[in-house]
């Protein structure tokens, strides 16, 4: 019988810790039908803006809508690719430069599905989730992040 999936929380307060990522990888050692994982990690970059240098990004979201949308994207990606597992974590609140703000993790029997699904997930997350990044500057001002 197929597992019934329900919306789950993707949001993490503050930065995503490398330890949590290591644990998440380790949690898959028992799933021996997996042959390949693909992981994307988004890191906050110290961009130079005309108004100052970025020192952190403060993330906010329309959480209820974002979780519904993330679930919809998740179902579509599961339907499109033969995946064993999929995990999505996105930061809320302040994440300093050099810290991680997005963790997308897909696993499959073979590498191609995991890699293609991971790539598509990251693109859809950035384009479709109602999440906003306020770039905090060293001049104490801020600018609003623009996704390219």
């Amino acid at each position: 019988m197929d597992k019934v999936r329900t919306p789950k929380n993707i949001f993490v307060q503050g930065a995503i810790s490398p330890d949590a990522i290591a644990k998440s990888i380790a949690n898959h050692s028992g799933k021996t039908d997996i042959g390949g994982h693909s992981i994307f990690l988004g890191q906050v970059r110290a961009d130079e803006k005309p108004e100052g240098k970025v020192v952190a990004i403060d993330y906010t979201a329309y959480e209820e809508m974002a979780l519904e949308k993330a679930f919809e994207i998740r179902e579509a990606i599961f339907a499109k690719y033969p995946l064993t597992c999929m995990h999505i974590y996105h930061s809320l609140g302040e994440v300093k430069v050099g810290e991680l703000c997005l963790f997308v993790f897909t696993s499959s029997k073979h590498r191609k599905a995991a890699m293609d699904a991971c790539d598509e997930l990251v693109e859809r997350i950035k384009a479709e989730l109602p999440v906003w990044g306020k770039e905090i500057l060293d001049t104490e001002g801020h600018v609003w992040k623009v996704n390219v």
Partner: protein
Amino acid sequence: MKQVIHLKAFGMIAEKIGTAELELENPGTLAALGETLRGRFPDLQSAKFGFAINKKLLQGDAEIPAGAEVALLPPFSGG
């Protein structure tokens, strides 16, 4: 009886109107709501934003149901 709608503003739009939540008399459609807001908050004249009614993205001539939650969404910039 007047119909009230609940507005939620996010990101740059919340900053420009100075609040994240607002109640308004229902102007009928999203296009009319856009005009009402741009009249009331001149800072929105040059701002780009979309709408969601009860968490679904909708545009222009969409009708706003009574008691709806309408979100004002600047361009997404997650990740």
